[in-house]
């Protein structure tokens, strides 16, 4: 076994020294050419962020404001560059989102500001920046993190979109419920869903894959919750919009299928310990649409029940579903024009937009709650696979 007797760990001060002319090599090897699926898999979560911060600490220790500025600028621009190049790859985007947040947390934790030092060990307090206040740079990095988050959501949306329609609406897991299949449905969709590639199960697998990648990258738990809430919003909005545009989706049995699918999504949240992240609540309009497909729609009492039940749906959505409602067997009836008029009259005083379709591109505002790390900077070692041999531990 090789024995490193050069220095004891406690002698390190948690800084990394580098020459000015090596700065480009640093961002090239650590940001531009690092493959999240290759070398980075075995790294401790957030290692690139810690390395960059330890380099920054050394520039601060030298009291070299120019070195601090150029390192921060190169870091930010390189992250932007890699996201421009591989912005459609979920793993790359997730990897840099978690590292950008970790870098931001380090800038706070070691800023010297007491509000961010509450959980620091005495040794960590010794590692605070000594010469520069980087509050303005923190704001820029927070803006960058917002951009990366939005990119991540676009990636997720692009992957999930097609899965949602098949998984939530078309694929039927409850056998024998639908009775007569609406004419033409199978034929029209056969070319895409021929081998049932997209089922609810495959969509849940995809959600799990997103989740496990973010966990592997050490993404802050509070941020993962926000991503999951946004994923559920997209699932609810895309499903509801398709239902509102397709007569063949507005039946009692589809209502049943949707409710089952929603219960599976809830089960997924429970399994991941994410019941309190607000995701379930984003499905409320879809849940109410499914209930609307299943309740009785005949008497004044039915109308009253519908109006008090469907508070998360707009009047135009309720009316559209009632208009599109299609009986699938002889025991059911179409909804009468008179009943729809009754509903319209009852909902006349609701103050709301005449919105029919949900905005599937809407993104909830994201926040990055401060999440300090207990990791001791002086213990961090750099794996040789990163090709950063030109950095010196100080």
């Amino acid at each position, binding site marked *: 076994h090789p024995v490193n007797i050069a220095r004891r760990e406690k002698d390190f001060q948690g800084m990394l020294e580098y020459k000015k002319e090596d700065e480009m090599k640093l961002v090239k090897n650590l940001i531009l050419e690092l493959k999240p699926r290759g070398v980075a898999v075995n790294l401790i979560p957030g290692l690139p962020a810690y390395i960059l911060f330890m380099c920054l600490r050394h520039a601060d220790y030298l009291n070299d404001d120019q070195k601090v500025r150029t390192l921060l*600028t190169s870091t930010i621009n390189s992250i932007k560059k890699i996201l421009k190049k591989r912005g459609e790859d979920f793993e790359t985007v997730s990897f840099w989102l978690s590292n950008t947040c970790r870098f931001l947390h380090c800038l706070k934790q070691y800023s*010297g500001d007491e509000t961010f030092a509450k959980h620091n060990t005495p040794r960590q307090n010794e590692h605070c*920046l*000594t010469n520069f*206040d980087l*509050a*303005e740079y923190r704001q820029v990095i927070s803006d960058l993190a917002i*951009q990366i988050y939005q990119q991540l959501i676009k990636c997720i949306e692009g992957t999930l979109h097609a899965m949602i329609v098949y998984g939530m609406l078309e694929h039927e897991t409850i056998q024998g419920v639908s009775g007569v299949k609406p004419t033409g449905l199978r034929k029209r969709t056969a070319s895409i869903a021929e081998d049932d590639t997209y089922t609810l199960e495959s969509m849940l697998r995809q959600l799990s894959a997103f989740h496990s990648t973010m966990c592997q990258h050490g993404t802050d738990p509070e941020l993962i919750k926000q991503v999951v809430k946004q994923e559920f919003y997209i699932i609810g909005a895309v499903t509801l919009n398709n239902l509102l545009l397709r007569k063949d989706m507005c039946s009692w049995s589809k209502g049943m299928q949707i409710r089952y699918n929603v219960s599976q999504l809830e089960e997924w949240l429970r399994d991941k310990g994410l019941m309190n992240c607000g995701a379930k609540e984003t499905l409320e309009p879809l849940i109410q649409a499914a209930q609307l497909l299943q309740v009785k729609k005949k008497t004044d009492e039915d109308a009253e029940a519908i109006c008090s039940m469907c508070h998360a749906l707009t009047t135009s959505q309720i009316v559209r579903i009632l208009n599109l409602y299609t009986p699938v067997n002889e025991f059911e009836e179409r909804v009468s024009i008179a009943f729809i008029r009754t509903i319209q009259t009852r909902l006349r005083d609701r103050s709301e937009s005449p919105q029919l379709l949900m905005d599937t591109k809407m993104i909830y505002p994201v926040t990055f709650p401060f999440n300090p790390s207990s990791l001791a900077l002086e213990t961090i070692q750099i794996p040789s696979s990163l090709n950063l041999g030109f950095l010196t531990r100080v």
Partner: protein
Amino acid sequence: LGPRPPTRPRVLLKAPTLAEMEEMNISEEEDSP
């Protein structure tokens, strides 16, 4: 350990915006084809 020694006030480094930062990046080498 006792109280931390007082440090002198840190100098606030003014930061450009994200967009301004991108413009400052003109010296950076171009992507190889």
